[in-house]
């Protein structure tokens, strides 16, 4: 691994000051399981992907870690580890889907150091992007090797020039939960809904979020469920395991249902598109319908928005199945407690 300078700021101001000065030369560091162990050890560099000269350790900033639950919902600091999310009693009670998604990430070892912010900001999956010998378009090269190569794990929807899939299990859940990101730079702070947080290759080939190089995610805010909302997270990877590998398809569902009729909700898929993908086509097909009767056809409607590549038709079939299962799973459970309960 190439040399880098490890900065260990004592407070947020210091951290943001470094990023302000250094721009892309300095990258935020949390658990490091992707940027150090993945990106830097695997030498993922290119014209559009400079090797960071400095890493800014955000775990030395105490204010960025921890979970707060208040009247408005919960606020989770960006450097809160996944295991702290999984083991948090209030999160398990009011945001069980978030805990389910956190528990589905990688291995227990990784969950004990990986963080919420890191999980959201890890670089995408695509084995061409992740292999130093392919100078792919995302790294600043000329072509996407997935187009002609073995693209069994690549995007089935929303690819454009680049066919990565978004790897985060938590991002899928956060989008379904209507969560917001609190983002800070040296001089400003802003709140961005996760609905607007992720960008596709069409908008920006080199980045996956709206974050500017001098900004960091400081906190994630999740509102309480509204009464009568049902939640579920379902993940499928190659081995069909609950954890370990990245999702071939994951689905997070937040459904407001009365007497079996879909009132409103959010259905979000991971592993199928360059961003966590909100399946509005399925939501609309369910709108105002009796779910039992409409479910199969509504989930099949997802096929209409897909554009599979040469080796990944099967992911479309799988996505439809996982959509059905996630929605059924949500409805089999009691509704999620609201803040008043």
């Amino acid at each position, binding site marked *: *691994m*190439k*040399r*880098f*300078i*490890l900065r*260990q700021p004592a407070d947020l101001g210091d951290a943001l000051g470094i990023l302000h000065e250094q721009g892309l030369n300095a990258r935020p560091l949390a658990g*490091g*399981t992707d940027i*150090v*162990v*993945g990106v830097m*050890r*695997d030498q993922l560099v290119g014209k559009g992907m400079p090797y960071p000269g400095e*890493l800014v*350790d955000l*775990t030395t900033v105490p204010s960025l870690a921890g979970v707060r639950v208040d009247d408005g919902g919960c606020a989770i600091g960006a450097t809160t580890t996944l*295991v702290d999310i999984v083991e948090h009693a209030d999160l398990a009670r009011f945001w069980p889907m978030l805990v389910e998604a956190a528990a589905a990430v*990688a*291995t*227990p*070892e*990784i969950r*004990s*150091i990986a963080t919420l912010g890191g999980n959201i900001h890890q670089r995408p999956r695509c*084995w*061409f992007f*992740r*292999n130093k*010998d*392919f100078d792919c378009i995302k790294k600043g090269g000329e072509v996407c*090797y997935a187009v*002609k*190569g*073995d693209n*069994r794990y690549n995007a089935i929807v929303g690819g454009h020039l680049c066919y990565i899939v978004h790897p985060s299990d938590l991002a899928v859940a956060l989008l379904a939960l209507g969560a917001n990101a609190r983002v800070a730079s040296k001089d400003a702070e802003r709140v961005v809904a996760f609905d607007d947080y992720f960008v596709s290759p069409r908008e920006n080939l080199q980045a996956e979020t709206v974050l500017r190089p001098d900004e960091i995610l400081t906190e994630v805010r999740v509102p309480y469920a509204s009464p009568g909302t049902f939640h579920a997270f379902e993940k*499928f990877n*190659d*081995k*069909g*395991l*609950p*954890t*370990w*590998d*990245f999702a*071939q398809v994951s689905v997070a569902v937040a459904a407001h249902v009365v007497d079996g009729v879909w009132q409103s909700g959010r259905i979000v898929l991971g592993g199928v598109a360059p961003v966590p993908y909100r399946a509005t086509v399925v939501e609309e097909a369910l709108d105002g319908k009796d779910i039992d009767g409409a479910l199969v056809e509504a989930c099949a409607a997802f096929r209409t928005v897909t554009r599979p590549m040469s*080796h*990944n*038709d*099967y*992911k479309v*079939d*799988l996505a439809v*199945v*996982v959509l059905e299962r996630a929605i059924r799973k949500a409805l089999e459970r009691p509704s999620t407690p609201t803040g008043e309960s």
Partner: protein
Amino acid sequence: MNDLTGPTPAGATAYVHPAPTGDVHAVSVSIDGVRHELSVESRESLWETLVYRLGHGGANLGCDRAQCGICNVVIDGRSVNSCAVLTARLSGKSITTVTGLSSGPKVSDLHPLQRAFWEEGAFQCGICTKGFLMTSHALLERNPDPTDDEILAALSGVLCRCGEQARIVLAVKRAALEMRTGAVVAPEGSLPHTSETSLMPHTSEVIGARIPRIHGMGSVTDEGQYLSLMTLPGMVFVRMLRSPYPRARIVSVDTRAAEQVPGVVAVVHHFNMPEPYASTVIEGPPYRYLLGRDLVQVGMPVAVVAAESEHIADDALALIEVEYEVLEPTLDYLNTATAPPQWDNHLPGTIRNVIPPVVVGEPDQALEHADVLIENVTTTPYEQHVPLELRTGLYFWEGDNLVTYQTTHRTFDARRELARWLNLELDQVRLIQTGFMGSSYGSADHLIEEVVLPAVLSKITGRPVRSTLTREESFLTSAHRGRTWTKVKMGVNRDGVIQGVAVDVVYDGGTNAGTPASAAASPGLSGVGVRGGWYVFQILYSYLSQKYEGIEVWTNSLRAGPMRGVGRMFGLFALETSMEKAAYGIGMDPLAFRLRNLNETGAVFDEISGTQPGLPFGRVGGQRASLERAAELIEWADLWRPPRGREVRPGVFRGLGIVSTLDRGGGRQGGAPSDAPPPPSTAQVLLHPDGTLEVLSGSTEVGSGQRTLMAMIAAQVTGITLDRVVINPGVDTGINTDTGPTNSSLQTNVSGWAVLEASELLKSALVDHAARAMTDLGFDPAHEALDVRDGWVFVTDRDEVRCSVDDVVANLSEPLHAESDRRRKLTEESVAVGAHAVEVEVDTATGGIEIVRYVAVHDVGKALNRMALDQQVEGGIVMGIGGALHEELIVDEVTGILVNPNILDYKVPSLYEVPLFIVDLVEIPQDYGPFGAVAIGQASTPPVAPVLANALYNAVGVWVTDLPLSRNRVLDALGGRA
């Protein structure tokens, strides 16, 4: 702690890792209760700090990417990959490694987890054990009474490639129980031990028992000398720059910037490679040289850097400028005939070898006139062994003589090859294998440039050298299971008689050109790949006519070589899926069809098997008995239904499969030319005046228990109790005598015989020596005989007249000594047979295959160490499951680059995928094996893929005959049938 017990450079003290430079951080951490004030560079991982900076042996390394878990330690109560954390960020943390788990060197000092892992056989090679122990420790500290599911979840981030997952869960449960109750729970069938330092029992009656590893203490503590933990005083590290192209010629190399990096000691490449090394042909044609100019695959070494640390070497590699002339590669293995030739080839394109076809009877006519003709095309991908230890070598020179430590299972062969490649006489190379090695499953079989170049760098720099391959390099450079395409035509009549079979094979050997010697002895790959597949066909079943054709091709992809089961893998997959299709084709029960057609007359063509003419077959009864037993255990008669006949939930079906299996072993070394002699069998035994029996054997330990078995044989034959038998863990060519490599399932039959013979000789010397003393006790030498058992010399039929071995030998002035040096007969080669059966559950919606029950029955002749035997069978199945369901190396068809050289994208089995095993034995002793035993090491892997493919068809009625049977292929095959 990592002090080598073998030779080290003269006059040297301990290794000292270079002081950090650049971005240096002061860190204060507690490691195993000891406070350390450290100064480290920001990029240094905790693993590097432990092993290189502190000489700490508490964590092995498997991937350096947080993907395998074998380096796990506990940090502030949580299990963490020590490769994944930077030491500079650990100030104030408390770290516990396996070193901190035990309180001393005795068995009684071990933590209950350590003892349970050892005694339950929860490891073979032990490379993953420290990771499992520490992760289990973190679990039990939080949850003293975990459920099975909680154990699986907690340990799911650690991989075991030997396949001991089920035993690991058992060991954790046992340790948890012991910690809760304070009692020691002896496992079923274990024998009591008296030694403070080992679990070896106080009896000589050990053959057939369950004996844990004799050197297991080294695997459950930090004592085992795994080379990845070892350093040499004054050493430098080497790293290599590798070709990014599958075919290219090096035009120029500019190393000026690299040489300027502080800490770089040498940079060697094609244009400055010294003689005689530069001119040594290592294989070919096409000829391959050490740092040659012509690159024929991605990952071939282009330049080598020796530097004071691996990081510094990597810095230098990044600064080397290479100009390549990029050439058109051959990547499509099914179209090599029209590819541009890459050497002076007498065959079209890059076809390497056309194996002389074999025909018996009139197969073309038979196929034409059979009632039913099935055609079955099967393909198998490149697979890799994924040995969890990163292959490591240590090197230093004493004048013109090389001393080297290697991760190898072929101690003496590796020495021979190193000597040849380095232009040295055999006695100028001393090679040591420490006895602790991450099992390689065949991957360390071929000597590769990576093993030789560090020796050259050590010679050039005058410094000891350490070389450790990265995980990516391991994927790129070691020999893989070759890709294959097989077409089978089988003609069957409705009465179940197979009229004819025709087999056509394309075997992709990749860039494996064979050594010049083997190429001369037998062209190309000597037909090992293709013939290995044919062998299966002709041994297992009978056909009225047969035809075998095949070619071996050369491509600029990966390098093919031996992997557990070698050519039997694709052969059995092609054969047993064809048998299944044929049975369905005539409407016959697949089990009945197999029993109807078993080959009960023996091998037909010696030239196919590659074995010697006249090989006795003699395994027939075992084959039938195995199939019948496996059918009984899987409840075939009650549960088998026609395809799609058992829907257990909507869209979810169960199905059964059953197949035969076989493997060869114990005779000639796999891959050797058919006129090559079998390996030598040698051993020496010494009975010392203190009553200990010392076994000297060159049998290399690879984790499957070779050394334990040699000690057991010596104990059983001499009558001296196993706890008094000593055998070094390692093999040293400077001390031991050649007794063949540990491959091709031959050590039991090779070294085992030698130990047995030497022990018999020693026993008669002991009895002779005892006779005088026993005469004083009333022994009548004229009419009575003496025997030895459990450490006592006694009069046969009057065992109350006895004298302890200790007393008999106490007054010896020198040890009693015996040795064996025998050349085994080729007719002593064994064929191991068996049958596997499985019940699967297939979800047509997700394409998922779940194994409900797995049955393996093997005719092993005689079980010697039942624990090691079960472990080998289980481990072979787990490896087979990985290959059947998930594992494939993917070479990009456009660029020739290996797409998935990591353990995340190359998916080996985890704890979750290990099914409920039922292992049963048939024991029909064979007189060519010690105590009647035959080989078992490889027989349990080949049947897994075909039995699962057959069960998949039986469950859901679709065929997938391209391995692996991964979700995408199953869903594609189901396409709409869900």
